[in-house]
């Protein structure tokens, strides 16, 4: 079950935000951590192998080589979150974004406060305190989020894209919206489902879409034929609202 909160809107229709849990949050962090580690590491490798600079803080060249890598590593989050209004590459890949408690994008000061408190969230090691906070707080927030008044929410961009797909399907089909979405989802996930499972699902669906169909004939149909029949139903102009 996903945690969600409602935010009041001037339209009178509340905005529903799906809160990202500790798992999604950690996933985004790990992606970002790899990105900044790779960037900083790449910089140091170039300095060492291409420019032949000894990587030590005791020489000016060495220090100036280490400095950009350190900046990339430690200022990655504050700089990118401010520039991308509450997002980072890792958060985008994990499908989450930072929002303020009113559902809008967070301000610069809120993002900076959120990042300053990483110092506390990372105590005693490996973001332990922050992770524990995410497990025990109502909105799954770490200390930095509490101080800044921000939330990490799921950014369901795929759902937005699916609007166009549903529109196209609804225009060309006479199936009810529920049936349409169900058949479309089964077809979309067809290749990822196990053969026995998808055959069973397809037969059940087809029996409900077309109650008059011969059950024996359906049982005799192979995997590919069942898929083709579902596809035909999706594009059919015959009303079938039994699902």
């Amino acid at each position, binding site marked *: 079950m996903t945690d969600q909160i409602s935010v009041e809107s001037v339209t009178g229709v509340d905005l529903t935000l799906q809160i990202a849990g500790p798992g999604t949050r950690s996933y985004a962090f790990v992606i970002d951590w790899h990105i900044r580690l790779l960037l900083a590491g790449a910089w140091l490798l170039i300095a060492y192998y291409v420019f032949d600079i000894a990587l030590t803080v005791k020489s000016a060249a060495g*220090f100036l080589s280490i400095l950009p890598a350190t900046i990339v590593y430690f200022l990655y989050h504050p700089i990118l979150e401010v520039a991308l209004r509450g997002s980072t590459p890792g958060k985008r890949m994990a499908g989450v974004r930072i929002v303020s408690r009113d559902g809008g994008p967070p301000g610069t000061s809120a993002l900076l406060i959120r990042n*300053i408190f990483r110092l506390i969230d990372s105590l005693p090691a490996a973001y332990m305190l922050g992770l524990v906070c995410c497990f025990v707080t109502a909105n799954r927030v770490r200390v930095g989020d509490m101080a800044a008044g921000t939330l990490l929410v799921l950014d369901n961009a795929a759902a937005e894209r699916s609007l166009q797909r*549903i529109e196209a399907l609804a225009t060309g089909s006479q199936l009810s919206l529920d049936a349409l979405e169900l058949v479309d989802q089964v077809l979309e996930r067809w290749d990822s489902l196990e053969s026995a499972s998808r055959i069973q699902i397809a037969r059940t669906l087809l029996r409900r879409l077309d109650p008059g169909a011969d059950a024996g004939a359906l049982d005799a149909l192979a995997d590919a034929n069942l898929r083709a029949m579902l596809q035909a139903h999706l594009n059919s102009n015959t009303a079938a609202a039994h699902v």
Partner: protein
Amino acid sequence: MSDAPYIRQWLVAHAAAWRGVVQRVAALRMQRNATVDEALGAVEAYRGLARDLATARRVAPNSRMTSGLESLYGHLHGVINRRPRGGMAALRVLFADEIPRAAYELRARIASMGLLMALSALAGWWLVTTFPTLISLFASDDMIEHVEQGHLWTEGIINVMPSSILSIGILANNIVVSILAFCAGIFLALGTLYLIAMNGLMLGAAFAFVHQHGLARALFEFIAAHGPVELSVICIAGAMGVALGESIIRPTLESRRDSFQACAHRIAPLLLLCALLLVGCGFIEGFVSPDPRFPMVSRITIGAAYWLIMWILMSGRLFRVHARR
């Protein structure tokens, strides 16, 4: 009679408008500024989308159509509620109003932290004067060895490392200490109080130790230029940490979380000034403090002038005068 065909018809009838909203949101999210017409158009689309979402939630609550509309509504809400980028005007407000307001609010706590640091320094002085072996608790073996040989550990430091590099290392360290003093306030201010007391103890102990070896004047000469602002900034960060802790212990709003959040937002601008001041301190500590060519008078003048600048910046007078002109 099933209303399924009507839902599908309704979807098909509204889909074009939703497609328009998707494009509008994508365009507005890319733009830095929007025209009045674009803003009004977005508000109108927001109203329309709210109506459609309310209908979708009622007629098809668990459908992909509804979750698509929820997502679109959320993005449009974000675009409409986007805060303007302030630019120079926001910076002026920060330095003329927000920082002075935070400094004024914290004035009693800043004085308390100064007092705590002074008392801790006296305690450190007394401890090392009474029990000289205790210096090993406050200073590294390398530092103790240097002083016992009659030299400060800071002597010749610029021969080992260029001033610019030294400055960056010092300012980074000082900024981390200040941020830590601020953030440690979340532990009911105990973390902050510990940090300030430890800094004071170390300072007093170091002075007592170098005094025993006749190097107190040399250490004073070293810290005269950067010390006043550096120590003041640590006290200010400590005062901010104490305020944070107090906001949790004695909340002024409905909940402790709200009180903590409001306090962090109110006083955080002062942390920015602290960081800027510490950048200046870092450069003074890298270029002026270890350089023997600077006489004591110059060091004291630099230290006093920088300290005065710090108070002027905290009062906000400089920016208010500028704004009046």
